[in-house]
């Protein structure tokens, strides 16, 4: 059964639509990453899934039951919890904070304390239990907030940019703890991130948002352009580059070049690809059996290639490579 099923969900603030999601199903036990740039609607979606905000229209079902009324939302909040991007810890001790939600569920003080201590231990925060929340670092606040959420043993935990500002080791520790939690019991995890690397590394499913809508492509290689129109094959300027695209659209648009449509080579070659860009490899990240190679060609382009190709070409950070893609591979929306 799906933990969340979203249908025709709309949200608007001050008359401006900030989210329009036609459908989304998050299966039980999933690790869904919601990715997109700032303002894409990630936090809005998470707050709706956490049932702290009311949508303008549309519906969300939690474990097959539609959550419609204020009473439904109140009940649903007992089963789902959200860790905000800048979590707030109440005045008092860390243990008191982690026990808060359990106390709100009517758990006795003694049992809430024990369960809170256990949740802190699972996140290796046992030594912080008696600490005043005002004496914590930002990273500690974030981890305590995650412990506070997991102490409730929710069916789903929603995390808004859970590793923003954290160093590599802290990020790793946090996601390891979440994975361990999923090993203990059924838990659906939805996390928002503007860093695709996190999403690809930790999620098993991905929702890309762009201006409040589900984007057909990941938010890599997205460019805002102004199309001149007039011809089916247009030349578009992006920074210092001119790309050829096939579209009959005119005016402002977003171009997307899917990373798996880009061919990398160590030399320029003649092919049907209308766009060939020379650049320098600036980042390389593993993605399962594939490699995500970021090329600075005047604009940053991400290409997805097999590990075998990567090794055979002898690509490395700082090296030169050519990116080729067809005009018809460039999506316009």
């Amino acid at each position, binding site marked *: 059964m799906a933990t969340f099923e979203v249908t025709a969900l709309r949200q608007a603030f001050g008359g401006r639509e900030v989210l329009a999601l036609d459908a989304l199903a998050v299966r039980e036990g999933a690790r869904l990453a919601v990715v997109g740039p700032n303002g894409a609607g990630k936090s809005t979606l998470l*707050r709706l899934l956490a049932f*702290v905000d009311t949508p303008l229209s549309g519906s969300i079902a939690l474990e097959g039951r539609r959550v419609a009324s204020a009473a439904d939302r109140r009940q649903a*909040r007992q089963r789902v919890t959200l860790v905000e991007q800048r*979590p707030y810890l109440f*005045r*008092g001790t860390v243990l008191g904070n982690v026990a*808060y939600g359990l106390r709100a569920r009517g758990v006795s003080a003694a049992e809430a304390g024990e369960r809170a201590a256990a949740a802190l231990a699972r996140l290796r925060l046992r030594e912080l239990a008696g600490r*005043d929340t005002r004496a914590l670092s930002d990273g500690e606040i974030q981890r305590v907030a995650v412990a506070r959420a997991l102490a409730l043993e929710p069916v789903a935990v929603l995390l808004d940019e859970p590793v923003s500002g954290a160093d590599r080791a802290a990020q790793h520790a946090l996601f390891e703890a979440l994975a361990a939690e999923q090993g203990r019991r059924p838990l659906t995890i939805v996390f928002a991130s503007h860093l695709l690397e996190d999403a690809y590394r930790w999620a098993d499913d991905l929702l890309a948002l762009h201006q409040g809508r589900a984007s057909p492509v990941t938010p890599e290689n997205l460019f805002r352009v102004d199309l001149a129109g007039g011809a089916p094959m247009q030349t578009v300027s992006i920074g210092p580059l001119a790309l050829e695209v096939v579209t009959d659209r005119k005016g402002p648009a977003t171009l997307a070049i899917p990373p798996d449509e880009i061919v990398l080579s160590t030399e320029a070659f003649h092919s049907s690809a209308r766009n060939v860009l020379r650049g320098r490899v600036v980042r390389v990240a593993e993605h399962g059996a594939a490699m995500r190679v970021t090329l600075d060609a005047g604009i940053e382009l991400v290409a997805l290639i097999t590990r075998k190709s990567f090794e055979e070409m002898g690509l490395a950070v700082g090296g030169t490579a050519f990116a080729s893609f067809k005009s018809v591979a460039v999506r316009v929306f």
Partner: protein
Amino acid sequence: MSAPGGEVLGIAVLSLKIALTATVLACLLGIPLGFFLGWTRFAGRRVLLALLNTALALPTVVIGLLIYLLLARRGPLGVLGMLYTWQAIVVAEVVLALPIATALSAAAIQAVDPRVRRTALTLGAGTLRTAWTVAREARFALLAGVVVAFGRVLSEVGAALMVGGNVRHETRTLTTAITLATSQGDFGLAVALGLILLALALTVSVLIQLLQGHGDV
């Protein structure tokens, strides 16, 4: 006017009794009212807040006059026979302190980080627990409002004179006694009473600060 030690003590105790009673009553009414104004959003809320802020600047003699007219023998509440009693001073001081307690509580609640409410909700707290959590986070600002209200009623003289009448052994407070002593040229006594007033204010402030210090559990 020269008062023996026992009488001065009586005046100080009465002043404290009136100030504490008025503060407690004003806060019992004002804090929930201020919480409501700071917590909810409804049409006319801004107008109410503006009126409340205006009431903060209400001259004490105007309040004294209003309460006098209400409690006077021929006034609407004349049958209560409260005029020139210490209870009449309490009524006037409550009217004086109520806008302070309300406005400062509303401001304290409004100043609470909006994440507090959201966090409480995401952790499954109901409306009451969420409200209590918000109040807990605002407790220092709320206590500051109590201190301001107490200071205002303890130092008030105009309304106390008008509705209390400065009756010896009955409604003479520290401030009205200071006024009388000054008008009679007994500056030594006036200064002594003033020092007692200051000491009382200081003691209460220190006590509240100590409470704040121990409240963080």
